[in-house]
């Protein structure tokens, strides 16, 4: 089935190749502090940029006066919308977001003006001297209000960014036949990516345009938008991926790219913009907060007969990736289950809240929280074990999604659950032994010594598409060059794939080693001097850029073998590459690769596209809109202090199918890190927005899990080959973040008997309701 098994292997296995626990090539620089992040760059004569931002969620701009700011000693320039050289707006899908607002601001923190100065503090103080005369307007801060007929449109086309409607079968008929019906309303808070390295970069004016070193997820889409806003041809804008301090979707949209470049072009000097944490909260999109109303009907055996949902995703002020998030939320809305009849409606709206867009899990997170809560509710109504209910309804290979898409790859929903249930539970606490308070809810705050603490266990399973769906031309590009260095062959891998911490560079090198039988591989910095790799998003880079590297290596190998045949007269079909040499089937040395390339390096560039194109959904939400799917199941064990509403997660167990673990060390890292973000959403993370104003833009007030909050993770990795992908691999990054949240909340419900319909769960949700 796998394309890799159709041809005989032409390369002998190598150490540190595909499947090996290879260390990161950049780890040494990262542990010594020598690795250059986008915030660690400087240049002679560098200026610091600062951004003037709106204090209002919705206001008309009457005037902007920069006189006083310009007069601050040390200030080089102050720019407004009038100074934007090209397109005034940008956007990933829809160019609706102003580089600098001119007539209206639509969210708290929207950029209005820019300052460049010789010291960051001077720039900040001058920014405070820019006088903007605002006429505050009533903000729309609720998606339901935004949809109302009387709502004033925030954008010319109205307040609906996207509505996906999926209709299949006969819901009314199924509802009439259903033995059990459960309904629920759920809410997901606005989560922040909270990558550790705030937005930053250095823009350097060049003879033709600008060179930008920036932390981003997609160099070429930055280049496209940046060139348009600067009024420059794309080739005049060179972008280099500087060291990225995490991303998780928060670096898909532009942040300071145009701003720093405008200041650099205007002053003729290098300009550095480095956000602090507070500005970072305003500088990128968040995970869409959601309200989800669900109805599930089942027969007496617990087989789902229909699912209805109406989900509102608050997209905030600008479109960003709301349309695509909406499609994924709808496409996964019924869960990884066989459901013959559905009516699924998902809306993404404009409001005056902070813009929302991509974050790990991308719409699948919100839907999973609701459908898994519903499955627990249905199990309770039927008197069935919740895992057994899921198993009875589990999708499998050959099954169909509500979109009509047939699952032709692995869909091991039942197997994941069975394996998960078979994993041992952590031991129950010994009632006769005093527990270490660090293991208890409240921890070192010393709020309990075990009294009032109850244990709960919960399960959840989730899935998400891999790759860009909906008909996007998804591809990546790789250039592979083999040359000779000191008598040894060396491979250089050049792609534009952004390494954001996930380990793509490790995998690219592993694939090159495996394909070429050459140990020495250098992964060059990602930049726009090579073709697009697409976005480091959607769990797609190992597949797409991995596929491009493999394909370019195959072309290089063919050329190396051709040269060996030409020079040494052997029969091509019997040759292979091993340990830097071309050898015959029986291991006889024909030529070293170093000799074959010594005066004439081999270089090949290839684009890779997956063997199947996706398509947009039709008006009934039908179509093969996704490339493939990744599945993961989670089990949470929690201890809850039911008097104080405090929670300690004892353990998370997980089983995930990854197709093929190209680097098991990286796979484990993705699983453990993804679960931590799922735990954060379950228990603590929410951007608090009141009347459109962000209340907690700091790590003092927006809490992410610490090492004390994270329990041990017990993981089991399944490797069921994905037939469409190179090596049978599958996307890994997002599934850990999807079902971990509902598993934790399910465990909390088991411990407290409370409905807990919103995340993050607050102490009040546990205690207040109990008191009542």
């Amino acid at each position, binding site marked *: 089935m796998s394309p890799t098994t159709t041809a005989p292997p032409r390369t002998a296995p190598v150490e540190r190749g595909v499947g090996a626990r290879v*260390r*990161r090539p*950049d*780890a*040494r620089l*990262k*542990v*010594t*502090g*020598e*690795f*250059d*992040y986008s*915030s*660690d760059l*400087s240049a002679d004569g560098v200026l610091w940029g600062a951004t003037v931002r709106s204090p209002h969620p919705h206001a008309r701009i009457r005037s902007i006066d920069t006189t006083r700011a310009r007069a601050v000693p040390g200030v080089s320039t102050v720019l407004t919308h009038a100074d934007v050289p090209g397109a005034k707006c940008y956007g990933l899908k829809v160019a609706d977001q102003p580089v600098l607002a001119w007539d209206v601001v639509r969210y708290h923190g929207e950029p209005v003006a820019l300052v460049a100065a010789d*010291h960051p*503090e001077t720039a900040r103080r001058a920014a405070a001297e820019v006088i903007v005369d605002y006429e505050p307007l009533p903000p729309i801060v609720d998606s339901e209000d935004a949809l109302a007929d009387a709502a004033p449109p925030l954008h010319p086309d109205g307040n609906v960014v996207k509505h996906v409607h999926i209709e299949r079968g006969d819901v009314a008929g199924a509802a009439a036949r259903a033995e059990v019906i459960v309904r629920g309303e759920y809410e997901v808070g606005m989560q922040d*990516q*909270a*990558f*550790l*390295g*705030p937005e930053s970069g250095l823009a350097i004016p060049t003879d033709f345009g600008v060179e930008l070193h920036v932390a981003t997820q997609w160099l070429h889409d930055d280049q496209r938008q940046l060139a348009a806003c600067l009024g420059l041809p794309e080739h005049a804008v060179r972008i280099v991926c500087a*060291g*990225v*301090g*995490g*991303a*998780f979707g928060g670096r898909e949209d532009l942040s300071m790219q145009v701003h720093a470049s405008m200041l650099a072009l205007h002053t003729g000097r290098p300009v550095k913009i*480095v956000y*602090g*944490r507070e500005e970072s909260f305003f500088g990128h999109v968040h995970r869409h907060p959601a309200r989800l109303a669900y109805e599930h009907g089942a027969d007496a055996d617990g087989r789902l007969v229909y699912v209805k949902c109406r989900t509102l995703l608050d997209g905030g002020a600008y479109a960003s990736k709301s349309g695509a998030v909406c499609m994924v939320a709808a496409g996964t809305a019924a869960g990884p289950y066989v459901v013959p009849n559905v009516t699924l409606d998902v809306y993404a709206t404009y409001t005056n809240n902070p813009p929302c867009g991509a974050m790990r899990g991308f719409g699948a997170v919100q839907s999973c929280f609701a459908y898994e809560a519903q499955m627990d509710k249905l199990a309770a109504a039927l008197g069935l074990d919740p895992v057994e209910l899921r198993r009875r309804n589990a999708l499998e290979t050959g099954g169909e999604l509500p979109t009509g898409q047939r699952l032709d790859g692995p869909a091991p929903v039942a197997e994941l659950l069975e394996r998960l249930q078979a994993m041992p539970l952590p031991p129950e606490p010994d009632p006769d032994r005093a527990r*270490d308070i*660090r*293991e208890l809810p409240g921890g070192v705050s010393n709020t309990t010594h075990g009294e009032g603490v109850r244990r709960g266990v919960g399960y959840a399973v989730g899935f998400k598409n891999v790759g860009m769906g909906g008909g996007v031309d998804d591809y990546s590009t790789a250039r592979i060059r083999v040359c000779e260095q000191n008598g040894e062959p060396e491979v250089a891998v050049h792609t534009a794939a952004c390494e*954001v*911490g*996930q*380990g793509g560079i490790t995998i690219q090198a592993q694939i090159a080693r495996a394909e070429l039988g050459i140990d020495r591989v250098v992964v060059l910095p990602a930049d726009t001097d090579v073709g697009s790799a697409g976005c480091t998003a959607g769990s797609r880079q190992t597949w797409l850029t991995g596929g491009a590297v493999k394909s370019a290596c195959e072309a290089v190998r063919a050329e190396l073998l051709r040269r060996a045949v030409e020079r040494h007269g052997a029969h091509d079909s019997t040759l292979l590459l091993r340990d830097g040499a071309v050898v015959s089937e029986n291991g006889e040395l024909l030529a070293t690769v170093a000799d074959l390339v010594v005066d004439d390096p081999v270089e090949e560039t290839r684009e890779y596209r997956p063997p199947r194109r996706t398509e947009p959904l039709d008006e009934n939400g039908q179509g093969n809109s996704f490339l493939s799917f990744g599945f993961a199941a989670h089990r949470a064990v929690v201890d809850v202090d039911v008097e104080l509403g405090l929670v300690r997660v004892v353990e998370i167990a997980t089983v995930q199918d990854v197709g093929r673990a190209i680097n098991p*060390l*990286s796979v*484990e*890292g993705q699983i*453990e*890190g*993804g*679960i*931590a*973000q799922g735990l954060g959403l379950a228990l603590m993370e929410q951007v608090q927005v009141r009347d459109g104003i962000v209340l907690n833009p*700091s*790590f*003092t007030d927006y809490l*992410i899990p*610490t*090492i*004390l909050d*994270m329990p*041990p*993770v017990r993981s089991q990795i399944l490797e069921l080959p994905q037939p469409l992908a190179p090596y049978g691999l599958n996307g890994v990054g997002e599934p850990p973040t999807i079902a971990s949240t509902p598993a934790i909340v399910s465990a909390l419900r088991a411990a407290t008997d409370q409905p807990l319909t919103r995340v993050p769960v607050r102490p009040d949700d546990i205690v207040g309701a109990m008191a009542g």
Partner: protein
Amino acid sequence: MRLTCTVNGERREADCAWEGESLLYVLRERMGLWGAKNACEQGECGSCSVYLDGTLVCSCLVLASQADGAEVRTVEGLAEDGELHPVQEAFVAAGAVQCGFCTPGLVVATHDLLERSPRPSDAEIREALAGNLCRCTGYEKIIDAVKDAATRLGSGD
């Protein structure tokens, strides 16, 4: 204002244009020691952890002038003669580094923990490193790294 201090064993001087500059800013922007990171500027994340006269501090919360005459040790001062410190070696080997932005702070904090407690329990590790946020790893491999570092240091590796 002129600041004089010892950084990683070397006497260093810096002229601060503004008296409000933090030790973190001076280390990075004036001394070119980019290892300590700014991720929260509030002492919440530990990415800027350094030693100040032997005490682990968040350098974002220390005014540069407070470091005048002091001895500062940063992540750049842990490796000797190009050889990684066992803590650094362990972080690399365990896969405890992903984006790595938190890593310099965690390496310094782990170094400090193992100086005080050469064989820490899991709970002790968690308590000691609770001031260092990591968004990528879920901390599992960081705990592995700390234990491995303790072993390496204990065996004189």
